[in-house]
Structure formats: C-alpha cells, structure tokens
C-alpha cells in the first residue's frame, strides 16, 4: 500500500538533488520566524505565517491580490513546483501549502520530515538569503472546497458529519484552551465542537524525524476513529495550522476527496456567541 497521492510528498534527498533547479522553488515556513534567518536550505526563500501570509487588518489570510504580489516577489510562476518545509513537523509548511492551493497553485509538495530531518541528516544550512527574478503571478479564484467557515462547521456539527479535532487531548476535553505550556489565551470557552472526534495531529507523524507515518498506520488511525473517505471531513485546531497538517494527510496521503480546513478553529469557535460546545 502506498500513499494515494505520493506526488505531493518529496524526501530530503530529492530536495538536496534539486537545489539548483530553476523550475522548483523551496519555501521555508516556520512557527519560529527566526529559524530561516539563522540557517535555511540553500536557495530557499521564507514565507512567515504571520507577517507574510496574514491580512494586516482583518482576521483572515492575505487577499488574492496580495498573494499574487508575494508569489511574484518570490520569483514563482504559475508553473513553478513549490516545495514547502518547516519546523514543528511541518505545521506551518502545510498551512502555506494549503493557502497556495486555495489560490489555485496546484504544483506543491511537502518535504517529508521538514527542517528537523534535514538538520538530523547534517545537510547544509546557509544564512545567505536568495532572491529571484520577479515574475507576474496570477492567482486563480479561491478554492472554497478546501476551506470551512463557521457556518459550514455548524451545519457539519448539527448533521453529525465528520469533524476532526486535532488539538491535544486536554484542549479537546476543555481542561486547557491552548496547547500545554503555551499561554492559555485566545478563547473564552474551552471544549470541542459537538460531534468532533479527537485525533491529535501528532499521531500522524513519527516523533523521531517528523516524517509522516506509513499509509497503513494512517488509514488505521483515521478509519479507526470513524473518519472515512466517503463523507466530507472538516479538520480544526486552535488557529488552523496544526489542522493544515491533518488536512494534508487526509487529502493527499490518504486521498479523501472532500476535506476542509476550518482556519477560524478554536480561537473563533471558543469565542463565538451562541456556538454549541461539548466538554
């Protein structure tokens, strides 16, 4: 058994062999924005979840117009293969990939194992920031089939259709509002969306090197909790970054046809007046 869409995953060796390929752009996207400046894969560029990819005023990610500007500045054309990697088992790399897909960039990959694996293999990291000839990138219409808004989530919950809560068990139970040992802020209520099953994101990756688990292990994990390919699935976490990883796993590694990421996640739901919550 192999992953259903293995073409969305590349290994570190593959990236190492394609560092100078003009048709490929390697993008680092981290939780910690200082990691790229202190050392990154030669030729890689940075997108920062916060300062590059978020809307400067509204709670939203950047507009299509702004996305075109970012992609153009990074020298990406509509044909470029974009490879994402990052820290924390590729959380923010998956978020960036999800956003690229939202604006219609199909040619995307995740580097299996992310920054951790690259470092463990003692592969080169450089401080020199690469820049590329500016392009004229054209975004497509947003792909709403991969993004869930609060109204979609309420319908999904009311219909008892599959919702996956990928946060830590204590966030799911409502004991904590944020990740263990992170500041407990961002939501006024704890708990989970009614009907959501708890499948923490970390169960999809190998702790030692941040690579994804085998197709068999992943299938057993999600199907074992009743999350199957026959229905539309919505994944959420606290701000939509950990659930991007689960979204990637379900959509590409397991090939579920209809998977959405709810990027409003708990920081929206846990503050939303009148929203149903289970503990």
């Amino acid at each position: 058994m192999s992953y259903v869409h293995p073409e969305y995953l590349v290994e570190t060796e593959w990236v190492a062999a394609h560092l100078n390929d003009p048709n490929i752009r390697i993008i680092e996207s981290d939780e910690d924005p200082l990691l790229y400046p202190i050392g990154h894969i030669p030729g890689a560029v940075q997108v920062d979840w916060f300062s590059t990819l978020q809307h400067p005023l509204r709670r939203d990610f950047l507009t299509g117009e702004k996305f075109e500007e970012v992609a153009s500045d990074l020298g990406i054309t509509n044909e470029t293969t974009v490879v994402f990697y990052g820290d924390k088992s590729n959380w923010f790399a998956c978020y960036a990939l999800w956003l690229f897909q939202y604006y219609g960039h199909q040619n995307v990959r995740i580097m299996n194992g992310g920054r951790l694996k690259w470092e463990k293999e003692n592969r080169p990291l450089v401080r020199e920031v690469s820049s590329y000839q500016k392009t004229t990138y054209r975004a497509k219409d947003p792909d709403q089939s991969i993004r869930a808004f609060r109204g979609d989530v309420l319908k999904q919950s009311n219909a008892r259709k599959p919702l996956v809560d990928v946060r830590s068990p204590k966030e799911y139970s409502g004991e904590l509002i944020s990740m263990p040992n992170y500041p407990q802020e961002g939501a006024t209520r704890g708990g989970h969306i009614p009907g959501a099953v708890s499948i923490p994101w970390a169960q999809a990756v190998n702790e030692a090197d941040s690579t994804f688990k085998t197709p068999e292990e992943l299938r057993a994990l999600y199907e074992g909790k009743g999350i199957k390919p026959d229905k539309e699935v919505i994944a959420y976490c606290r701000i939509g970054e950990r659930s991007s990883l689960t979204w990637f796993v379900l959509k590409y590694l397991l090939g579920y046809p209809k998977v959405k990421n709810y990027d409003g996640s708990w920081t929206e739901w846990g503050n939303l007046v009148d929203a149903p919550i289970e503990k």
Partner: protein
Amino acid sequence: MPRPYPIIMSLPPKLQEIVDDFAGMSREELIETLIAYSESLPPLPDRLKAERDRMDPVPECMTPVFLFTEKQSDGGLMFYFDIPPQSPTVRGLASILASGLNGSQPEEILSVPADFFLPMKLQEAISQQRINGFIGVLAHMKQAAVKALENRT
C-alpha cells in the same frame, strides 16, 4: 492592608535601555537584534545541568523552557535559561529578560509591568503567541522573585 513589597515605578536601567534600543528599530534590525540576543544567551552552567535532568520531561509540542534562579550575596537574582536552538525566538526573548533583569532585586523584578515591552514594537516581527510566551517567561521570573522574598524573612 499594606502591600508586601514597595512599588517601583521605573524599569531596571538595563531593561529600560534595551526597550529604548528596540523602539527605534526597523523590522530587519529587530530580527537581527533578536537573533543576536538568541545567540548570546549563555549556555546553562554545568552546576545546574544535573538539576535540569531531574526535571519533568517535556510534553508534546511546547518549546521547553527551563529557568533557574540563583540569589547573589546582595540579594539580587541571577537567571539562567536552557532553551533549545530550534526555538531562536523564545531564546532571544528570554535572553532580553536575562540581560535586562540579571542582578536586580526581587522587588524590582516584581515591579516590571507585564506590558513593559509594548514600545519595543515586537508585534511587527513576531506573532502574538510568541509575545505571550515572553509574558509567560516574565511571569516565571516573578514567581522566582516572590519565592526569594519569602525566603528572606
């Protein structure tokens, strides 16, 4: 009821100096300076390593921050951190707090307002969640200062 310790209205001079430095920086300078702080965070002294190894293992997905406090003969506190190189932002923020507060009296540490860093404009480079981590580290240092005051009497 009398307050248990006097209120000091100004920041310790070294911390004030750091805040003022940051206030005038561009985003690029801010990032470079945070990296410099991150890299200058001294390694944990050998005498504290055994103590760290006795502490609890780190739960899933947090940045492990170990904080140690030692009292000097004049009552001032010295802070030592152990934070992995994979978390340079947290290292940088902890390093700022250590540089700005090491040697300060517990009363001075307790008087640092939780929003003292607002003029540093960190929010232009790092997300609110990181900044919240900064507040968290300061809160830990204040707990250590409270303990030091309790032990004084």
